[in-house]
Each structure stands twice: as structure tokens, then as C-alpha cells.
């Protein structure tokens, strides 16, 4: 008994300082990529760094934040960001999933051709696509309005009316992004062994029931991860609103990231821009922690 009570020295737990050397490069890269910019950003957001104090900016505490929280724009911009992110995510991620399911059907002929074709627009430089769409959606002479005219519908100000602008940027973003989600889901769908489908088929499950009882539960984690990732990515997707509407008309399509840019580089109020960016990051952080708590989606990364 006494022998068993003796503590066993655990050599595995000892920190070997030589091995720290091996993770040093990773730490250095992380420091440059992550820690430095973030810390610098946080620091800027606590200063009065702007056009007027370019060389002699100083620490101002939470002044920028209290200004932002007091400004009427914040609510609109956050609401816009939510509409933009949720709106894009709920169409592009399921569309990608559905297309992946369709593309992976056992008996589909010409799979490889479709796969290359649907990746093509995604491989195309996004800003060119956005330019094309911006022309197509133009009020005067845009293809979309011309086509509507043919069926007797009067022209719509797709990009220049507050009612339609948000819808338009979400639509273009959807058009631009869903091939990517198809691609991502394809590998998830392909990871399911065929026998699982065949067993269900023999038991009498039709395709819809197989989807809800087999495919979706099997891909629960992946779906959660891809959806949340899609949401975060869209939240920070600067391209589409900036190039298509520039946040307008008014601030009706301004999202946090474009607004931060606007403050920083159009009004040269770098500190305020940084503060907006930090607010955006903090909201996302809370979002990720909460969703991960419920979905455990991060576990697919380990």
C-alpha cells in the first residue's frame, strides 16, 4: 500500500527548453501576422491619430469609442453588416451545399466538366466580375433593366436606391461566392461512404429523407463550420459593397469594414477607423465563442 502511494515522477511533463526552439519560428510569424497588427490597431484606436495629428498623436483613452457609441451611424452600420452577412450566408451556403449534392450524384454524367465550369467564375478576378455586374445593374443601359423593360417592368435603381442597393450587393455576393461553397462542400459530401446511402436506400428511404436523416446529421459539424466561416468571411468582405455601391446611397450599404475604411482613408481619421475595426473584431469574437459553444464546430479543426 505504501509503495503504491508513492508519487511517480512524471518525466513527460517536464518542459524541455530545447524543444521551445522548434516552435520559435511559428511564434515569430504569429507575432508579425497576428499580435503586432492587432496590438497596433488597438493602440491606434486609443489615440487621436488622424490627419491633423499625424506626427504628434497621443493617447486619448476611450474617446474614439465613446464618440462611436454616441454616433447615430453605428446602429445603422451594424444593422447593415448583419443584414449583409446573414443575407449572404443564408443563400450562398445552402446553395453551395445543394449544388455539391447535385454534382455528386452517383449517376451524373460529365461531373468533371461541370466542376471546372462552376469553379471558373470563382477563379475569375472578383473586381472584374463586380465591374461587369455594376454595368449590368446600371439604371440606364444596364442589361437587367433592359431585360425587365422587355417584359414591361419599368427600370429599377438597383444600386442607387436605399431599397434595392442592399439586395443587389447581396445578390452579386451570392453569385460570386456560391461556387466556392460548392467546392468546399464537395469534399465533405464525398467523405461519406457510399454504403451509408445504399443501406438507407435498401431500407426504403427516399432521397429527401436520406438527406435529412443521413447526410445532414453526418455533416452537422462541417455544415456548422462552413456556415459560420461563411458568415465571418462575409462580415469582413470588403470588395463587393465597396466596389458596387461604395456604401451608398447615403450609408445604406455601409458595413463595419467599409465604414472603418471610409473613416480611416477618406476622412483620414485613422484612430476612428481603427476603433471601428476593433469593434467589428470584438463582435465577431463574441459571435464565434457563442456559436462554438453551441455547435462545437471548431472541433473539426483539431
Amino acid at each position, binding site marked *: 500500500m505504501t509503495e503504491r502511494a508513492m508519487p511517480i515522477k512524471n518525466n513527460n511533463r517536464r518542459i524541455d527548453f530545447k524543444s521551445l526552439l522548434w516552435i520559435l519560428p511559428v511564434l515569430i510569424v504569429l507575432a508579425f501576422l497576428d499580435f503586432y497588427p492587432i496590438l497596433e490597431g488597438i493602440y491606434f484606436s486609443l489615440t487621436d491619430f488622424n490627419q491633423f495629428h499625424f506626427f504628434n498623436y497621443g493617447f486619448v483613452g476611450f474617446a474614439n469609442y465613446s464618440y462611436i457609441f454616441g454616433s447615430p451611424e453605428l446602429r445603422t452600420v451594424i444593422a447593415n453588416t448583419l443584414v449583409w452577412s446573414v443575407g449572404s450566408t443564408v443563400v450562398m451556403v445552402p446553395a453551395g451545399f445543394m449544388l455539391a449534392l447535385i454534382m455528386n450524384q452517383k449517376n451524373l454524367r460529365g461531373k468533371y466538366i461541370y466542376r471546372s465550369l462552376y469553379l471558373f467564375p470563382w477563379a475569375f478576378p472578383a473586381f472584374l466580375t463586380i465591374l461587369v455586374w455594376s454595368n449590368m445593374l446600371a439604371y440606364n443601359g444596364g442589361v437587367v433593366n433592359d431585360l425587365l423593360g422587355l417584359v414591361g417592368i419599368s427600370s429599377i435603381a438597383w444600386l442607387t436606391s436605399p431599397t434595392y442597393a442592399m439586395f443587389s450587393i447581396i445578390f452579386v455576393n451570392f453569385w460570386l461566392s456560391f461556387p466556392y461553397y460548392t467546392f468546399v462542400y464537395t469534399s465533405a459530401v464525398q467523405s461519406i*461512404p457510399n*454504403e*451509408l446511402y*445504399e*443501406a*438507407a*436506400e*435498401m*431500407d*426504403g*428511404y*427516399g432521397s429527401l*429523407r436520406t438527406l435529412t*436523416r*443521413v447526410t445532414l*446529421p*453526418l455533416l*452537422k459539424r462541417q455544415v456548422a463550420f462552413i456556415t459560420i466561416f461563411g458568415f465571418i468571411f462575409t462580415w469582413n468582405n470588403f470588395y463587393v459593397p465597396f466596389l458596387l455601391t461604395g456604401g451608398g446611397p447615403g450609408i445604406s450599404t455601409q458595413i463595419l469594414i467599409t465604414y472603418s475604411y471610409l473613416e480611416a482613408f477618406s476622412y483620414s481619421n485613422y484612430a476612428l477607423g481603427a476603433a471601428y475595426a476593433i469593434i467589428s473584431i470584438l463582435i465577431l469574437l463574441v459571435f464565434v465563442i457563442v456559436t462554438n459553444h453551441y455547435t462545437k464546430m471548431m472541433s473539426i479543426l483539431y
Partner: protein
Amino acid sequence: MGSLSLQNIGRNFGKNKGVFDVNFEVENGEFFVILGPSGCGKTTTLRIIAGLETADTGHMFLDDREITNFPPRMRNIAMVFQNYALYPFMTVKQNIQFPLKIMKMSKADQDAKAEEVAKMLGIDDLMERKPGEISGGQRQRVALGRALVREPALFLMDEPLSNLDAKLRTQMRVELKRLQREFNTTTVYVTHDQVEATTLADRACIMNGGRVVQLEGPLELYNSPADTFVATFVGDPPMNMIPAKVKAANNEVMLEVLGQLIPLKNFTIEEGQEREVKLGVRPEDTLVGDQGIEANLAVIQNVGKSVYEYFKVGDLTIVKQDTKNSGLVIGQNCYLFPDPAKLMLFDEASGKLIYKGGKMVKNAPTTA
């Protein structure tokens, strides 16, 4: 219950791959085994029966109802897949109940049914676990349970024991046979393991290159193989195959094998003629004597209940099996001869069995 009939079933994958002209009948309640080497078309045949693969040719009947073009779900057939195909996110109970979920059956009935099947399989204490939390043998039982719970007309099993270790496999073999008797469900069982075939099967068919080469009771496959393929496939170690010649001269019929002449009774051959054959001798029918084929003992394998001795004769290796050691030492020369009552002769060209048990086989092919 259910009787199955396959008529001229074929599925061509091209390049001579697939299954061709498969015919067999499985009677109600029968345990039917499809045996054959890897790639011979066993799985394809089973998948055609299940409806997961479509047949290019032929017809299929289940209880006199043609099911050739029925979708899988209309066939009332359950299949146990080689890798079990259990749903990892469901508990054992949910997996077993999966086929019932889609039937019009009350929750209480589903529970009772799953419980009953699980008891019978000895997995009723695992019901709330996930497939990832139980052993391979237990998973195997769950897969069986999922098939049993449906009470299908026909069971299909694709090498269901191949992922288990040797001991568990023996145990599950006994279990499977017991279950099949208990449920009395017609079963088509695929394996490449001839021991499994002989212990389980009421009847077995052997496939090779997509064709059925012999269909018989498992013992007949061993005792009267239709051709050299079956002869060497069934039995372990395989039957010794030695090139030989039948000669009829001076009113005597002799088998000339490796320079030795052995008198042959009842072999139909014209005086003065010769015929190329393959001599087939089972290891247990290989005897050591004072005269015969000169051989040199190379390897001795003693596995307890039997002793295998491997002899070299020129380039050939001849195996002899006995319950005890022959007393020879490695490197020693001796004389081997086949038990004349047991030796088999196969046609050189077609490989078909022509002579067995001291007489010609009925309808044996004559000289080509």
C-alpha cells in the same frame, strides 16, 4: 421466407470485367454461399440481387415475383455490408431501429422489436452507445440486428466476418448459423474463405472470372471439384496438381507421372492412344511408400492436429498431410504415390474433371 432465382444474370463493366450468365436458385430458408477469389464478381452479384446495381441481361425472381427492375426499397431484401455501414451519429438502438422508422409502426412496437433483436444478439446492454464506442464484433452484431429487425424476405451478406479476428470469426460463424436457423430467413452469403463456406452453407457456388463454375453442397465441392480451378481453390493447402499422361499400351492403361507408371482402372481410352491430363491429389491422399515418385522433403509444418510436409520434385512442390509425422527428416529422399482410390484426373485442355474415385466421371469431355 423467400426463394430466389437468378436466370442468365449479367453485368458487363467492359474489358471482360463483371458477371456473366449467372444462374442459380436459392430455396426458401436456405443458406446459400457464393465463394470465389477476389475480383470474381461476388459483390457485383450480391449488389444486383439487392438492386444497387442493374443487370444488363437476365431475370431475377423472389417468390415467383420478377424483381429484375424493382428499385432496392421494393424488394424487401436486407443487406449486411462488409464494413457494417452503421450510422456513426446514431446510438446502437437508433441504428437497429433505422429500418423501422420508415415503416408505419408505433414507437412502442419499434422499441420492443429492437429490444427483442438486441437480446437475441446479446447487445441489449449496448443500446445507448454509439458505433464508435463498441468493438468490431459488437458492430457486426448491430449490423446484423439492423438487417434482422426488418424481417426481410432475403438476407444478403457481403463478407460480414472479414473484418474480425480469427477467434471472433469462428465464434460469429457459429452464431450466424444459429441465427439463420432461428429466423429461417433465406440467406445469400458472400465470402472468399472456403472454411466459412463449408461450415455455413447448405449449398455453395463457386465463381471465377464473373462466372459460376460449380454449384453444389460444400462437401461435394471438395470431393468432386468440377475443374482444376475449383480443385485448387477449395481446400487448404490446395490440391497437388501434377502434369501427367494416360497411356494405353499392351492392353494395359497406365498413368505416367514424373517418370513413374501407375496402373489405372476403368479409364476409357483406345489401345495405343495417349491423353494429356492433370493429376490432382489432395494432400491427405498423398502417401509415402517404397516406390513411386522420388521426392525430397523440404519443409515440415506441424500445426498440432495435423502435419504438413512439403516435398520437392524437380520444380514442383508436393504437399502431404497426415495426422502424424512420417518420420522423415528434412533433406531426406523418399517415394511418394497418390492413393489410387482418391486420385483425380482433369482434362489438360479444358481443366474439367474426367476421372475420380477409380472411374470415369459421367459426361466427362473426351479427347479434344
